């Protein structure tokens, strides 16, 4: 228990001390220290299960992913430019640390109410992070993000209340303590729908995804990497826990059918907008929606689908974070978000171009990345369940996504113009590190419970 206290004490103390600090270097150093502490505790928790705040395996898995991402982002921030004024940067760092603390709390919490509170806290803190650049569009994105997510999560709270209603005698929100035979199926189904819609908005599933492209494309690169890499998984956690509850309560197939439907719609909507978008950061945001849809498909299949789902979560967050960081590099070279007028990336900065292409290949599920295996299992699972038409549609959708993403990245790397630009070393190292871990995972494929 003691380690958990350290985990939360540090951000608060650091936030206070940050108020006094003036120079950027010290602020970055604080963040780095927090990241190291975060990773250290995570590994310690991994070795001695349950030592870190009695966290179960699912929570620990998500915790470890966000700590690796946080480490990479912390290193990446060392390389960032110095143009922003220190006061705004100080606010930004404080909120970053609070954001990470809220995410860890959401992973550790067992009680659905507590999870709800900390997820709401992450929304608030990340809204501040998104609006760091004070441009008109980032403000609007932050407002939309905050507003739509809080409305969504309020609906999730309604679901939680209905869950209490569903348990006749000593209703409790501690998931593992709920007595299954006594639950009334009628209320459980309604509460599951509310929770699914609530946290679905937070994950960005199809009809509720509208805030995600704006928020992820307007936020600065390290933040959007954290958002799409770590935050989406943390929001996915309660859904997985409730799905396990539904399975035990015997309503397994309704929850799986809902997952499959939501997953399929979000892959479809993502394809529609990937083909249409003009801005490469929005492209990555839509691909996050698509991958979240694939994860929902995987969990909706059950059996080896669950293994594919975890693999997909791991692969997606690593590779997506690397992609966002590289997009940050491209932005710092071209200062323009529309991929139409980005030309000659290979010529201007060869390392970023190769990072971008490799990461893109891995997000599309080409072999070195674990997404390939999970894509294989998803297709097999779908065929196993007899959905032949959706399988064909899925292959077509993935092919059109691949087509449009490769076309865009090829047009970005095509001509030979502009002068060569060198970026600080860290901006290459952290995405490369993430891709390396993803390849290792892709080949070695760890075992999950």
């Amino acid at each position, binding site marked *: 228990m003691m380690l958990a206290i350290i985990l939360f004490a540090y951000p608060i103390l650091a936030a206070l001390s940050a108020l006094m600090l003036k120079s950027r270097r010290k602020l970055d150093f604080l963040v780095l220290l927090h990241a190291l502490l975060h990773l250290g505790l995570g590994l310690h928790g991994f070795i001695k299960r349950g030592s870190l705040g009695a966290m179960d395996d699912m929570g620990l898995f998500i915790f470890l992913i966000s700590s690796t991402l946080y480490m990479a982002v912390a290193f990446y921030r060392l390389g960032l430019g110095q143009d922003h004024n220190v006061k705004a940067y100080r606010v930004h760092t404080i909120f970053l640390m609070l954001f990470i603390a809220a995410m860890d709390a959401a992973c550790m919490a067992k009680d659905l*109410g507590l999870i709800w*509170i900390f997820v709401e806290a992450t929304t608030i803190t990340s*809204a501040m992070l998104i609006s760091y650049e004070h441009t008109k569009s980032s403000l609007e994105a932050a*407002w939309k993000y905050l507003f739509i997510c809080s409305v969504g999560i*309020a609906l999730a709270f309604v679901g939680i209340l209905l869950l209490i*209603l569903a348990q006749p005698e000593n*209703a409790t929100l501690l998931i593992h303590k709920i007595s299954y035979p006594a639950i009334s199926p009628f*209320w459980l189904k309604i509460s599951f729908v509310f929770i699914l819609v609530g946290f679905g908005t937070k994950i960005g599933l199809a009809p509720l995804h509208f805030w995600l492209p704006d928020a992820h494309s307007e936020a600065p690169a390290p933040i959007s990497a954290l958002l799409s890499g770590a935050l989406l998984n943390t929001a996915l956690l309660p859904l997985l826990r409730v799905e396990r509850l539904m399975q035990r309560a015997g309503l397994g197939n309704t929850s799986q059918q809902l997952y499959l439907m939501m997953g399929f719609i979000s892959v479809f909507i993502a394809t529609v907008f990937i083909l*249409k978008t003009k801005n490469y950061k929005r492209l990555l945001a839509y691909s996050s929606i698509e991958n979240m849809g694939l994860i929902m498909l995987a969990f909706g299949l059950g059996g080896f689908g669950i293994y594919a789902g975890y693999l997909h979560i791991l692969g997606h967050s690593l590779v997506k974070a690397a992609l966002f960081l590289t997009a940050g590099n491209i932005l710092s070279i071209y200062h323009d978000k529309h991929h139409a007028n980005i030309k000659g990336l290979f010529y201007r900065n060869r390392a970023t171009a190769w990072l971008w292409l490799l990461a893109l290949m891995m997000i599309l599920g080409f072999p070195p990345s674990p997404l390939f295996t999970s894509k294989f299992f998803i297709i097999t699972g779908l065929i196993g369940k007899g959905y032949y038409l959706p399988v064909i549609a899925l292959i077509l959708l993935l092919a059109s996504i691949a087509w449009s993403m490769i076309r865009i990245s090829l047009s970005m790397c095509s001509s030979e113009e502009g002068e060569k630009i060198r970026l600080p070393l860290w901006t290459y190292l952290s995405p490369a590190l993430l891709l390396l871990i993803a390849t290792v995972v892709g080949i070695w494929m760890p075992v999950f419970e």
Partner: protein
Amino acid sequence: MIEILVLVFGITLLFASITNMLSSIIRILVLQGLILFGITILKSTHLNWLGFGFIALETLIFKAIVIPWFISDTIKHNAIHREVEAYVSNFFSLALMSLIFLGSFALAVFSGQQSGRLFPLEFGIAFATIIKGLFIIIANKKLITHLMGYLIMENGIFLLSLSVGTDLPHIISLGISLDILLSVLIGVLFIKRIKSTFDDADSPGQLREE
């Protein structure tokens, strides 16, 4: 006694769908805060003194006093146009409000048979408030009205949590109200900043797939 308070709560909803003045909506929020404070006092008789006092104070301060003052203050400073520009006429929103009442009461009665512990009236009104809050967001152009619709929805959810029966543990209810307060504060902060950067306060449509 509780039933009367809940009915008055329903009437404030009807009143909200008619007004087209921002200040009157703030008055509705204050009124709803007070009603909720009343209901919490009546409902939680068996709590020990400390817990009871804590929740009562919390609902009173947050819902009735702090948030409405804060919103009216922002309206005054930023000279947001006092008129509530709604997409739909009042008549239509009233008709829809009655429809929502009908639907939520049917759900409450129908679900009443399912499990005995439910107070159909409170559940119906709470459900109606939530849907009404959502509808206010959808039907209005200005950002401030979005925020108010969100607050009405939160009041509905609080009423639902009361009607569910067993009280939530204090930490959770405290956390919830803290979160709501924070989101409102930051929301207002954003509106101030958007107000300063944009010329008009209605929701900016700049971020879209052209």
